């Protein structure tokens, strides 16, 4: 592999990668589900709890000031990471799922009424389907689905035709968690904006693989999770253009998000606090900022280039196995490979790969409608991160080959 990254040094930053499972070296290829954490991220959590733990935004005491500053610095780190205009546009959530639910509720209740349409794609994660169905049940909106071709690329002509005067929002995955397709979100946004329709981009699978610039994309909302980008579990981000966030009502009520409260009337805090009810995860935010700095130190370009080499190598090697069926062969593809061998059930293959120390995902990957379109029950999914190696891919391929011969 041709890379400027020092993979051995990187692997040393991730203690879990040196453990064994069933007395075999762990080969962790389930990064699209969650990534492992470098030491600096775990240490950041420890540092907050041991040195600066205090509730934020409301204390006059020293520690509270320190904790508040750290949390707000983390917000600025996220702002710079995705190139938002201001940190007021960065809302900390529990993850991608909560961020989409927030928009489905606050945007949906404000701007959608019966018969209005929301456009999603045929390759969405349940997190970008079910919140809209809940909105449909409340408001009578219509959910429309952009189809994709046999390679797993969106049918952009169909998309153009699906846009109507009733379309209120387009909500699309930046990268498919199953097919790996990198969707042309800039084009989608430009076309939607031409009809004055805002766009939400689910970036859960994208932010760890590529540099994302929300201003260049002109995204109205962009959401992602910390735990898939080497950060801690339980924190995520909703980016929203200030002009939109200003128009939306709060999602949850409680502490932190108010200006004044009387029994008669409550006024809400300014952005971003309006959307952060309750004590925020000020530990998670600081650790997430650490994860971002870690990725930036390596360089998102170098990460993407290396992961693409892993993808190309793995694809080539896997295709040498007779009966290999890879789902998702888009020209623009991230380091995710969903496959089946002949008609061997994904559970059977996954069970035996596990015994060989290979951690892959099996099943429908929270995308049952997509599986239905493909006419299958599930796949085996190997997803690569920058700490994976050519040798690990060789181990995967050898294991898949060994297992498929058992059926």
């Amino acid at each position: 592999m041709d890379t400027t990254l020092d993979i051995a040094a990187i692997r040393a930053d991730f203690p879990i990668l040196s453990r064994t499972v069933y007395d075999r070296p762990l080969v962790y290829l389930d990064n699209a589900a969650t990534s492992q954490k470098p030491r600096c991220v775990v240490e950041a959590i420890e540092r907050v709890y041991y040195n600066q733990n205090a509730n934020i935004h409301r204390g006059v005491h020293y520690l509270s000031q320190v904790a508040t500053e750290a949390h707000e610095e983390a917000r600025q780190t996220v702002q710079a990471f995705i190139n938002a205009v201001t940190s007021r546009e960065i809302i900390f959530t529990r993850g991608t799922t909560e961020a989409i639910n927030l928009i489905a509720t606050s945007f949906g209740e404000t701007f959608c009424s019966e018969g209005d349409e929301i456009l999603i794609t045929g390759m969405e994660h349940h997190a970008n389907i079910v919140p809209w169905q809940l909105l449909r049940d409340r408001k009578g909106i219509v959910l429309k689905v952009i189809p994709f071709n046999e390679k797993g690329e969106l049918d952009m002509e169909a998309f153009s035709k699906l846009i109507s005067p009733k379309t209120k929002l387009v909500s699309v995955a930046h990268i498919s968690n199953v097919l790996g397709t990198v969707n042309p979100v800039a084009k989608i946004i430009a076309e939607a904006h031409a009809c004055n329709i805002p766009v939400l981009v689910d970036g859960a699978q994208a932010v760890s693989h590529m540099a994302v610039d929300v201003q260049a994309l002109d995204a109205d909302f962009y959401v992602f999770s910390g735990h898939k980008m080497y950060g801690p579990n339980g924190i995520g981000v909703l980016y929203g253009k200030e002009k939109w966030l200003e128009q939306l009502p709060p999602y949850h009520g409680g502490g932190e998000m108010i200006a004044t409260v009387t029994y008669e009337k409550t006024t809400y805090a300014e952005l971003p606090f309006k959307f952060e009810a309750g004590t925020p995860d000020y530990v998670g935010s600081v650790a997430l900022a650490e994860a971002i700095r870690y990725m930036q130190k390596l360089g998102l370009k170098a990460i993407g280039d290396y992961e693409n080499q892993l993808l190309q190598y793995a694809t080539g090697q896997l295709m040498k196995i007779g009966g290999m069926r890879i789902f998702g062969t888009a020209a623009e593809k991230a380091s995710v490979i969903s496959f089946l061998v002949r008609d061997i059930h994904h559970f059977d293959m996954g069970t035996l790969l596990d015994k060989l120390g290979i951690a892959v995902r099996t099943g429908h990957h929270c995308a049952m409608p997509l599986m239905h379109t493909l006419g299958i029950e599930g796949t085996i999914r190997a997803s690569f991160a920058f700490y994976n190696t050519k040798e690990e891919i060789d181990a995967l391929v050898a294991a898949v080959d060994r297992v498929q011969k058992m059926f």
Partner: protein
Amino acid sequence: MTINEAQDQVIEEFSEFSDWMDKYAYLIDLGNSLDPIDEKAKIPQNLIEGCQSRVWLNAETQDDKIIFTAESDAVIVKGIISLLIRVMSGHTPDEILDSDLYFIDQIGLKEHLSPTRANGLLSMVKQIKLYALAFKAKA
């Protein structure tokens, strides 16, 4: 053969495998040779949805005994089903309700009956006992 005699026989069989690979190869054989369930029994009421694989379980009475048939879309699951049927089918409701399934643990397949596996097997075992309870109440 009692339920426990059948369990002990399975344990004996599996004691010959020193390697997990052989054990799974045997399960695959068992799965492939499991009689398919009657197509008429593949109805939604008999389907146990797991997140990872699906199981169909059908129960009928023959005299005072319950005959179970079952199938799955995953072969390894079918292999384990074949063992469960061998142990549990053809017994009276009381025998089934009083039984303690220890063989799965002893042959090292306990993980497949864990709720985290989501392969339908745990629900299948529960369903077997529920059928026994229902048939007992009817008798």
